[in-house]
């Protein structure tokens, strides 16, 4: 058969993200993939001109719904560093707890969507049911299920009571038990393995050279995790980056699956070590100077560049989200795969396009 160009997306039944890829196909085999981005550009960075640096927290939280808390945490850390504010220890621990809860529910959401991408809808429902526990924790402790609005410059707005802590521990334990019950299905099932093993391979060298981030990078055998930079309370928590060697869709889903359990462990550790103290340090004046901060989001490394010149409004807020880093590796995975595997491969990098285009 002659070469055909198939447009994939921006609206696609299995892909919840508006990503458009032109697939050059010959005999159902993809030869080349050409991406087109820019369908959901929202211009959030420009808002820094009319929203002061406190209000920008609410804006950057809305870059991405799933990692909202981690976005605002990264932003606040940057502003605090410019202004030399010392965040109270308790606030750092609380931020860690909420960010790990966010990682958990993000991975559970992804695992569900991934199962859905290769047609395993029963498994999708299982993962989303477990995720509901984490969403309830978010709602009960912060006031909102998705956009938590707890971080402020200098600390956090909400506190966890001892009753809440023990409730979180019991809910997280139940969630872990339920996740382990379906571990066998996602990791050993014939259908899952047939659809994911050896599909969309990204070698270690490719992952490194193309600058992959997060589980895409770790699934290819590179042990890199921004939490090792020891921001917030990660200096006191005991963990190792989770690495898989194969670099295929199966390896990436295993990394995410294992990270879900790791996050549960980190939440427990952080609650156990939660110190007493203030929730927020006072914040006076305006930021002056420039800074780059990095945090680990569920999808990988997120980078913020901020510049302030002693005014209420920041001069520049530049956000580089992990999906942006993962697009070149994605284009390296697609050639020579079957057309039917394309949704699975695209989902395996956990694309968040509205996040990439801000």
């Amino acid at each position, binding site marked *: 058969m002659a070469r055909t160009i198939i447009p994939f997306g921006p609206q696609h039944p299995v892909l919840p993200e508006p990503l458009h890829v032109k697939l050059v196909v010959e005999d159902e085999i993809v030869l080349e993939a050409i991406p087109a981005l820019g369908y959901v550009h929202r211009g959030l960075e420009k808002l820094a001109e009319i929203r002061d640096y406190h209000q920008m927290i609410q804006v950057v939280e*809305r870059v991405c719904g799933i990692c909202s808390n981690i976005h605002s945490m990264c932003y606040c850390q940057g502003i605090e560093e410019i202004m030399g504010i010392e965040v109270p220890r308790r606030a750092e621990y609380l931020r860690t707890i909420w960010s790990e809860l966010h990682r958990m529910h993000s991975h559970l959401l992804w695992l569900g969507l991934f199962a859905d991408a290769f047609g395993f809808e029963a498994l999708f429902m299982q993962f989303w049911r477990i995720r509901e526990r984490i969403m309830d924790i978010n709602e009960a402790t912060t*006031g909102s299920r998705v956009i938590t609005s707890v971080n402020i410059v200098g600390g956090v707005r909400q506190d966890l009571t001892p009753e809440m802590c023990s409730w979180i521990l019991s809910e997280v334990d139940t969630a872990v038990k339920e996740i382990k*019950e379906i571990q066998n299905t996602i990791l050993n099932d014939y259908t899952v393995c047939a659809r994911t093993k050896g599909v969309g391979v990204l070698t270690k060298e490719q992952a490194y050279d193309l600058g992959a981030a997060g589980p895409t990078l770790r699934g290819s055998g590179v042990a890199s995790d921004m939490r090792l930079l020891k921001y917030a309370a990660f200096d006191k928590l005991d963990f190792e980056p989770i690495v898989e060697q194969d670099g295929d869709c199966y390896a990436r889903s295993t990394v995410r699956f294992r990270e879900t359990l790791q996050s549960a462990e980190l939440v427990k550790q952080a609650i156990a070590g939660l110190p007493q103290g203030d929730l927020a340090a006072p914040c006076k004046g305006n930021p002056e100077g420039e800074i780059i901060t990095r945090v680990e989001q569920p999808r990988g490394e997120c980078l913020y560049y901020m510049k302030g010149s002693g005014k209420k409004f920041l001069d520049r807020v530049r956000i580089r989200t992990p999906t942006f880093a993962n697009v070149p590796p994605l284009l390296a995975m697609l050639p020579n795969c079957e057309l039917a595997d394309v949704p699975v491969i695209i989902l395996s990098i956990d694309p968040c396009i509205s996040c990439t285009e801000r």
Partner: protein
Amino acid sequence: MLNMTPTVLKNLLQKSSTRMYPIEKREPFERYRGELFNNIDECIFCKKCQIKCPSQCITVTKDKESGTGTWICDPFACVYCSICVDACPTQSLYMKPVHRAPSAERDMMEQTGKIKLPKKKAKK
């Protein structure tokens, strides 16, 4: 698919994980940020909420002649972050842990109240 069998059987025997939503509702959590209200008798029309609100959906105006002030909030632009609740010096703003009822028309929350004199002056 055999791996899934125990889970499937368990699901069959368990009670349902979902609710018959409009008939059966879950109790809201205490901290849930639901609907925004203003207790207009307490409000001193200081404009703090207007200044702090990140979505700039509050407008506070004062009319010196008639001695009244108006507090207007566009609930469709509000993102329910409760920053205004934290900023209000008289605690006249509060959030109820309920969902806003659906509405087919765009209606603004508009409240009018008397301007109170600042406490120091009132004492004289």
